[in-house]
């Protein structure tokens, strides 16, 4: 696609059934009632000059360039704020208007630098375009008047600069921050001629302000006032490619704007159905890791992990790997091999890895990082609703009246969706937050939760059961819905169970520490407040009762009739960009693509016929079981694509022991990650910018990932997997990822209608896409549940075995922050570290006081499993008795302290509950020091072969 900015119709689309017909410059146009004259004119192909208007912002009417004349109306109304009316006759180009517009432009340019040719926005500047459009030739005021030309630029943000001398005070940045992002970090400061944009207060700059660096302001700016540093350095882009972000599960689509092979900037794509033109600091700005000097682009091998790495040819590396795998298989059997697919890679790549493991290695020992995040979602929703996926599209939130957020922190982990949710909340929807920590959604500018239930970590099931108790015992359940859509007998069993007095909020308050009155009020609100939607994240799944909690959520949704239409539903917020896709593609050891159990003969036969192999009918090992088996000696080789299990999985010591015990660890990744410390083969990976395929986001939306630049290592990841397969003699011959998707479609009913060609045409598709749903399925279970009737499952509250006691009196829970992503492999290699240079431990002031600790102190965080040190942040965001940290930095190794407890049904680790003690410390633990030494040792690359050029 050539470089041209996306069309801007000036004002947002209006949803109205009523249509009006009017005449603009002699052309007749019919538009929904309420459409602005500006938009109506744009729809006729006309173009009214404008500067303050943009179609993602409410009309503002300040620049006064868009004035028009309307027959029968006095004066010259602004077309952006004047709605079209039936029979109107509008003139957009008259001598009078031309003179007025030129007069306005003359004023603008009398207070603007005249350095267009050396300006970073040259030829990409709306002010320049409009000056041209109105025919300005001279500024008769001269240039000696009062002006803003001397104002200093604010370069504090690592990604963009703010140059107030170029500002035309259109407020688009302020409005974008308010309306689109919902952070309200910007304001107009002062008034009249002295008006100027200010990030925060007088003493603030962009970095110190409340700005979350989502980039909406930069995108909104019609001049070079807010400009990406990259554009300033590189120049104007010349071409663009639409692709999908590889950070979180929101799945934003972007225009990757390129100059040659160089990425200049990522601009959110307005037609992206997940993000509608919005972005966050990660997707928009934090792509520099792709070119980071740490990228490994040549394959490497070593005989044993105490040796330095040796760079070798692809053939040698693949041959080395294949022969090790084959000899292990020969000696120990196929079940000694396994693989881990990546939730970061494309569906096509993931499908190939599991195919390699099942068909090539001959085992079902394949798992994916969903094991450690959303495996309970798969289990819980499949059990209750019949489908392992969320029920809604993101747009659904526009129709919600009550939003229940449990165990999720959307503003940090799913920021683009959080902005949508916040917009709905500002328009009146009510919010209930169930979280041990006072997340931003509980209270931030213009957002306040009706109820925040700050539960004790590990008591989700107790709280949800108590809510169900209130709903059932107070007669608030939607019986009509239940009778029609669910199994009535199972409902009655469940209702009897939750109605028991021992599940009342008053009794369970002792366990959950949630005030019973608040809980009752929240339950009533959810049951009676209109469309109720539940959004949840890893605070639900990463528990011993993760699967129970997911089912309890599903029960709650069904009991209140909140399934099967817009505005309701159960919505898991997926962590990684393609965790939904990785699960869909058959990455779990017990099931093939489309969630069909490996033991099902008919399904297996389908694959066996297509692949020409016999498949093992028994489920394989999950990641933690693989590590157990490795220590045990029965599991000896693993191919890990795009995962860093050493850092991301719980109980680092145990992971290290498992990896160390293996004979062949193949890491396929961008960087020498922590897991690679234990690897024998390193296969360089490619970034999402370097490949073609698809990602599936949290709303089941399949979207194209398009190659923006050539892979630095010469191969896309699917090609590497194919090369490894072929080195093992499998004879694969895919020439394009679309062929892999065709295979998926052929073998997977819910993907039957999916192909790259259809995705190119439709933009995106939400599965199931099949004969019944040829255009996909934004909302699931509209007419009935996937397995006929919704299934109520009795979820008993079984407390975790992890208990606090005198030695470990505090509960540690973990989470994420906005600027970093997962283990930080990417974001730590970008300027995002400006916001979060290290992991901090949050502690309530009372607990800190008791320990004589204050913010900034080094503290030792110890559990029964291990200990680490990190610095303290004293805050009342966490309740007394609870501490919180993030796990973005390997130096901290937060997972050294997490335990091996896990979800009863899926073994999803219990990251969110660890009994700990915190005390003053004066430096890193022995483990941290040893680990650092090990890391340095394991990352050595043999000196005789030159490493990649420095810088």
């Amino acid at each position, binding site marked *: 696609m050539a470089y041209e900015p996306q069309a801007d119709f000036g004002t947002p689309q209006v949803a109205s059934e009523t249509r009006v017909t009017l005449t603009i410059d002699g052309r007749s146009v019919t538009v929904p009632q309420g459409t602005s004259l500006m938009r109506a004119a744009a729809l006729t192909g006309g173009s009214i000059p404008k500067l303050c208007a943009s179609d993602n912002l409410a*009309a*503002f*009417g*300040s*620049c*006064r*360039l868009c*004035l028009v004349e309307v027959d029968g109306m006095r*004066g*010259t109304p*602004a077309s*952006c*704020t*004047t*709605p079209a009316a039936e029979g109107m006759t509008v003139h957009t180009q008259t001598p009078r208007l031309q*003179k*007025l517009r030129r*007069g*306005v432009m*003359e*004023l*603008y340019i*009398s*207070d603007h630098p*005249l350095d267009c040719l050396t300006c970073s926005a040259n030829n990409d500047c709306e002010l320049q375009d409009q000056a041209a459009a109105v025919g300005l*030739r*001279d*500024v*008769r*005021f*001269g*240039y*000696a*008047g*009062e002006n803003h030309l001397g104002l200093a630029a604010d370069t504090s943000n690592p990604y963009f600069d703010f140059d107030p001398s170029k500002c*035309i*005070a259109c*407020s688009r940045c302020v409005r974008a921050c308010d309306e689109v992002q919902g952070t309200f970090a910007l*304001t*107009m400061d*002062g*008034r*009249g*001629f*002295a*008006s100027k944009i200010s990030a925060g207060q007088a003493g603030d700059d962009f970095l110190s302000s409340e700005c979350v660096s989502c980039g909406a302001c930069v995108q909104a700016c019609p001049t070079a006032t807010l400009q990406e540093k990259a554009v300033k350095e590189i120049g104007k882009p010349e071409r663009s490619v639409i692709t999908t972000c590889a950070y979180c599960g929101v799945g934003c689509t972007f225009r990757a704007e390129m100059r040659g092979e160089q990425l200049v900037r990522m601009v959110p794509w307005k037609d992206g159905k997940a993000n509608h033109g919005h972005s966050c600091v990660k997707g928009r700005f934090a792509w520099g890791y792709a070119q980071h000097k740490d990228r490994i682009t040549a394959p490497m091998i070593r005989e044993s992990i105490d040796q330095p790495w040796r760079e070798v040819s692809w053939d040698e590396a693949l041959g080395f790997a294949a022969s090790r795998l084959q000899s292990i298989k020969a000696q120990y059997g196929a079940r000694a091999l396994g693989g881990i697919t990546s939730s970061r890679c494309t569906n096509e790549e993931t499908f190939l890895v599991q195919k390699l493991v099942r068909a090539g290695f001959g085992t079902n020992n394949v798992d994916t990082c969903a094991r450690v995040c959303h495996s309970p979602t798969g289990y819980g929703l499949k059990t209750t609703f019949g489908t392992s996926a969320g029920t809604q599209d993101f747009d659904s939130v526009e129709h919600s009246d009550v939003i229940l957020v449990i165990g999720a922190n959307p503003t940090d982990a799913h920021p683009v969706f959080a902005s949508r949710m916040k917009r709905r909340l500002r328009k009146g929807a009510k919010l209930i937050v169930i979280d041990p920590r006072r997340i931003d959604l509980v209270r931030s500018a213009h957002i306040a939760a009706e109820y925040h239930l700050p539960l004790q970590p590990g008591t989700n099931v107790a709280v949800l059961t108590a809510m169900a108790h209130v709903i059932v015992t107070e007669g608030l359940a939607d019986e009509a819905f239940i009778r029609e859509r669910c199994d009535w007998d199972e409902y009655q069993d469940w209702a009897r169970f939750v109605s028991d007095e021992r599940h009342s909020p008053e009794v369970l308050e002792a366990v959950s520490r949630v005030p019973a009155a608040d809980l009752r009020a929240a339950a009533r609100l959810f049951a009676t407040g209109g469309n109720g939607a539940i959004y949840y994240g890893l605070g639900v799944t990463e528990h011993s009762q993760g699967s129970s909690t997911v089912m309890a959520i599903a029960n709650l949704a069904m009991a209140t009739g909140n399934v099967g239409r817009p505005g309701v539903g159960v919505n898991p917020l997926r962590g990684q960009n393609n965790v939904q896709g990785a699960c869909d593609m058959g990455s779990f050891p017990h099931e093939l693509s489309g969630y069909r159990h490996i033991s099902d003969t008919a399904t297996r036969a389908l694959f066996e016929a297509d692949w020409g192999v016999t498949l093992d009918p028994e489920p394989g090992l999950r990641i933690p079981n693989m590590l157990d088996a490795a220590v045990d000696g029965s599991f000896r080789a693993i191919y890990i694509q795009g995962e860093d299990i050493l850092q991301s999985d719980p109980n680092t010591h145990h992971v290290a022991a498992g990896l160390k015990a293996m004979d062949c660890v193949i890491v396929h990744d961008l960087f020498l990650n922590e897991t690679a410390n234990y690897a024998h083969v390193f296969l360089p990976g490619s970034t999402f910018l370097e490949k073609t395929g698809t990602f599936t986001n949290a709303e089941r939306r399949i979207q194209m990932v398009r190659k923006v630049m050539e892979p630095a290592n010469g191969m896309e990841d699917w090609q590497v997997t194919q090369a490894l397969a072929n080195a093992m003699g499998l004879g694969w011959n895919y020439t394009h990822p679309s062929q892999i998707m065709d295979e998926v479609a052929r073998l997977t009913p819910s993907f039957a209608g999916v192909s790259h060609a259809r995705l190119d045409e439709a933009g995106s598709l939400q599965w199931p896409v099949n004969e019944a749903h040829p255009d996909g399925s934004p909302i699931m279970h509209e007419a009935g549940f996937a397995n006929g009737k919704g299934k109520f499952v009795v979820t008993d509250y079984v407390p975790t075995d992890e208990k606090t006691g005198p030695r470990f009196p505090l509960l540690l829970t973990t989470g994420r922050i906005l600027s970093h992503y997962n283990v930080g492999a990417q974001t730590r290699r970008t300027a995002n570290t400006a916001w979060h240079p290290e992991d901090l431990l949050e502690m309530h002031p009372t607990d800190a006081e008791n320990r004589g600790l204050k913010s900034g102190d080094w503290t030792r965080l110890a559990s029964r499993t291990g200990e680490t040190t990190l610095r303290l942040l004293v805050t009342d965001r966490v309740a007394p008795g609870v501490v919180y940290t993030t796990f973005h930095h390997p130096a901290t190794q937060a997972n050294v302290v997490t335990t091996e407890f896990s979800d009863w049904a899926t073994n999803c680790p219990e990251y969110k509950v660890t009994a700990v003690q915190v005390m003053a410390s004066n430096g890193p633990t022995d483990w941290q020091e040893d680990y650092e030494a090990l890391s340095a040792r394991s990352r050595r690359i043999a000196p005789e072969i030159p490493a990649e050029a420095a810088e």
Partner: protein
Amino acid sequence: MTVVRISDDALALACGADAVAAAFVGAGCTVERVSSWGMHWLEPLVELDGKGFGPAVPGDVAAILNGTSAKAIGIIADHPFIARQQRLTFARAGKTRPLDLADYAATGGWAGLYRARSIGAPAIIAEMSQSGLRGRGGAGFPAGIKWQTVASAPGDRKFIVCNADEGDSGTFADRMLMEGDPFQLIEGMAIAAHAVGAGQGYIYVRSEYPHAIAKLNAAITLAAEIIAPFTIEVRVGAGAYVCGEETSLLNSIEGKRGEVRAKPPLPAHQGLFGQPTVINNVLTLAAVPHILSEGGAVLYDSHGFGRSKGTKPIQLAGNIRHGGVFETPFGITLHDLIYDIGGGTASGRPVKAVQVGGPLGAYIHPDRFDLPFDYEAYAGADALIGHGGVVVFDDTADMGKLARFAMEFCAVESCGKCTPCRIGSTRGVELIDRIRGGATAGGAVESLPQMHNAAKTPRSREADIELLEDLCETMKFGSLCALGGFTPYPVLSALRHWPEDFG
């Protein structure tokens, strides 16, 4: 016991009324503090048995009491300045104690409200429409139509907002009404609330009016039971002239920057806090009790001129001998106002110009003093009535300087939202300076060879005047609200009638 009546209006206080009152108390009199009659040149005006003495100073007390004062003006009500007026809105001026409920009730207070309650909302609105009352704030929009719009607009809640941000120089009728007869305003708001179904009212008063604020707060407390369940709260402005514009006023009450909102949506549909809102000026709402009293609407309609119905409290200000508030039916000429009623200039020098309608009103040349006071007539003469302020200037006035001041005032008070007002007003000041200082060549930048398209020859005075006219056109038709849109009136009128004052 001798009863003496002296106003406690802010203007009387500024002229020393408290000291005079104290002197009468010292002399053993009972002093009643009443509203001001509105004859400002006589303030402090002392009333003794209906007779007036003014302007009084404490030293006048003995003479007034013993009947020898040279400041006697006779029976106040018979004074020509009063006798010539048709006082409806200011009927109580000078006669009642502002915060005395008994005085208010005894002079017909609350009759309109009680009657309004008995006839019901549709009938109230019908009578409002019948009266022909148009908004007294300046725009002259028919109040009945506005109320009808709010009454029929869907909304959870509705509001009555009184615009008491009287910022125009030369106007003080709102202030006098709020200080002198606050219950009348409260009654008018209560009737409006009843008509449209509003539960809450706000009076937005500029912070420059501390006495009005205090009186209103006291009056609201006193009247709370009478107007219940309707409640009223006073909100104080914070030094922003532009907040007299209704949409920026609403933003200000909401606690936001006083930036002007684009219309539509109209406040009647989405006003305060997004709800349907009646927003009327003080004098509009204060006229309501009279209209709603028995036969009031017909009586109101019978006054006036053309489509300008009822009476208009005109404020005579600036360099005028007999300044004050003069309530009269529309149609009176400037000549009559300035000479017959106002007595010419205070300085005794010839009148040079009159600015009608505040800082955004045109300067009217004595040639046009035959202009009748009427919305349409003024509009036809490129002028505006606005809030009815008449500021007289004598022949020492520098009209070029006043034109510059108009631009400067706009620059100081611009909210900054729209470009023509934000940048145009500052450029206007600079341009008038340039014209008055003798046209200069282009600046150093323009003469650079790189500035190929810029004019290289010095700009002539004619060219700069043309530019000023173009700028005024851009501001007039391009601005978002009346601040930028009307600033060209004083500028262009000064330029047209007194070009010699522009250097």
